[in-house]
């Protein structure tokens, strides 16, 4: 049964090798953004078929989670989408809190700090996406500019949590620590510094005619195809649908914050092309900055730090959710990040955990999008999908 699918695959490759050319892109190709192998069946410069091979970075997240307590798994969730670790642990922690029924007891200050660090991390993730997309297309400078600005965020998050990328900062029922003294002021300085830098970046990359020529009308993803393939996040919004779980579910403090949902409008070409997807990320950085400013306003006024505030005060002593199934979803930087918990009500470890990574679903559409395109356009499409292999392979 199962061998036939494998045999069919081998036969297809063998047949293609006689007439067309089979070309391996990756696992070490610089524009695959990690260890992803794409097997291309090409006819000259035309790509006839793309067969993705994932799994080079598989680290058994789901198996690990079955033998660790909910708190111990948080560092593992950080390593899923390692470019936006805060968002991953936020979704995990909210899922456990809802199963325990303590999600309404979380102090407001904790919720706002969570949103603040998540949005900072989202900006950092989108900066990498935009910068590396530029380098894929052939623009080197934006990459350096993006990394220069991202460094400020890394520094701030390191200041708060003690780690540069894998934070383990958001805990079930609270936080690892309160924000360090002076964080809010430093963060406001960063926002004021960063806004003009985004305008510069747009002049250099987003509205650059060479960049537009390489990305507009390339890799058009129609909305119905995007939905049917389970694409979410900037992929789905790039195709023109305002679907953002921060707004749909209004989880954490997002219900009290004011922000727009940017979506693709086909300004330079067709709705859902590579330029639109990149533009959605650029616009989302602006929206994240708006959210950060609102968080800072509240964190410096009515939710000001007090000497007796303890972010660990609500930490549950024993985390044993009653027997149930729960699917928690949240908006990671790449799209809908979901955790499906199965608990038996007796033990402190989940019976089964499934992580639904947005990159996994976003990448699956690549075979559909890249039929009959040029190899150079495939690079543009891969970059615009913006996947992270840590989350794809889990």
């Amino acid at each position: 049964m199962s061998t036939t699918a494998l045999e069919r695959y081998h036969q297809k490759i063998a047949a293609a090798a006689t007439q067309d050319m089979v070309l391996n892109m990756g696992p070490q190709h610089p524009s695959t953004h990690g260890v992803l192998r794409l097997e291309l069946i090409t006819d000259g410069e035309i790509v006839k078929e793309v067969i993705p091979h994932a799994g080079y970075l598989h680290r058994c997240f789901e198996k690990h989670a079955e033998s660790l307590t909910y708190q111990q798994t948080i560092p593992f969730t950080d390593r899923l989408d390692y470019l936006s670790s805060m968002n991953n642990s936020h979704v995990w922690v909210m899922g456990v809190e809802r199963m325990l029924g303590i999600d309404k007891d979380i102090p407001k200050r904790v919720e706002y700090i969570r949103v603040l660090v998540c949005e900072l991390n989202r900006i950092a993730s989108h900066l990498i996406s935009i910068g590396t997309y530029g380098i894929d297309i052939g623009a080197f400078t934006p990459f350096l500019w993006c990394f220069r600005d991202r460094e400020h965020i890394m520094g701030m998050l390191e200041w708060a949590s003690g780690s540069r990328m894998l934070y383990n900062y958001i805990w079930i029922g609270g936080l690892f620590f309160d924000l360090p003294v002076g964080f809010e002021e430093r963060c406001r300085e960063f926002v004021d510094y960063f806004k003009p830098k985004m305008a510069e970046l747009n002049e250099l990359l987003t509205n650059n005619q060479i960049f537009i020529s390489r990305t507009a009308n390339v890799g058009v993803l129609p909305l119905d195809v995007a939905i049917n393939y389970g694409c979410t996040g900037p992929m789905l919004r790039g195709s023109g649908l305002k679907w953002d779980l921060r707004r749909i579910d209004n989880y954490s403090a997002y219900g009290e914050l004011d922000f727009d949902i940017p979506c693709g409008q086909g300004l330079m070409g067709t709705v859902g092309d590579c330029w639109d997807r990149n533009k959605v990320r650029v616009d989302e950085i602006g929206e994240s900055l708006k959210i950060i400013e609102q968080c800072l306003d509240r964190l410096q006024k009515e939710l000001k730090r007090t000497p007796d505030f303890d972010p660990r005060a609500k930490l549950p002593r024993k985390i044993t959710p009653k027997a149930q199934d729960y699917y928690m979803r949240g908006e990671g930087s790449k799209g809908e990040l979901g955790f499906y918990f199965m608990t038996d009500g007796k033990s402190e470890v989940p019976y089964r955990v499934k992580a639904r990574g947005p990159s996994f679903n976003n990448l699956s559409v690549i075979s559909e999008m890249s039929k009959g395109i040029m190899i150079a356009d495939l690079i543009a499409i891969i970059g615009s999908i913006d996947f992270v292999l840590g989350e794809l392979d889990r």
Partner: protein
Amino acid sequence: MTFQGIKELLIERFGVEVVVGEETGGLQPALLIAPDRIADVCLELRNNPATYFDFLACLSGVDYGITANRFGVVYHLTSIPYQLQLTLKISKEHGRDVNDLPSFPSISEVYRTADWHEREAYDLVGIFFENHPDLRRILLPDDWEGYPLRKDYQAAEYYKGIKID
């Protein structure tokens, strides 16, 4: 549309035997569907203008334990127009022999998302999906033995002659 409404809609459309039960104990209720009809149910839920569950959020293969000898699949559907979520479950009793896998219908014709998710469930839990276009392993190498997310999985001592420690 409410959970009960969806249940009645399915019973009206396919008969009473298609919904074999429901789980309403937790925060998210789930419908238990007869395994053979899952593809029809998903197609109906996707196309019916009253439900429009057009987005498959998650598909998980589950091993219900060494003593239970029961395998299942859990589907999390989302309706984007109505902003609804729905959980469907199918399961059946089956032996644990790795050469005789439990088999369920594939829904990759209805949702293309299911293509890779079903490959993952096959790869890690060892569930076979009938009529799947390309059921190969996806995360593990093609020559991997066993299904790691099964509860009785024993890690291999050697992989291609290399000792694992």
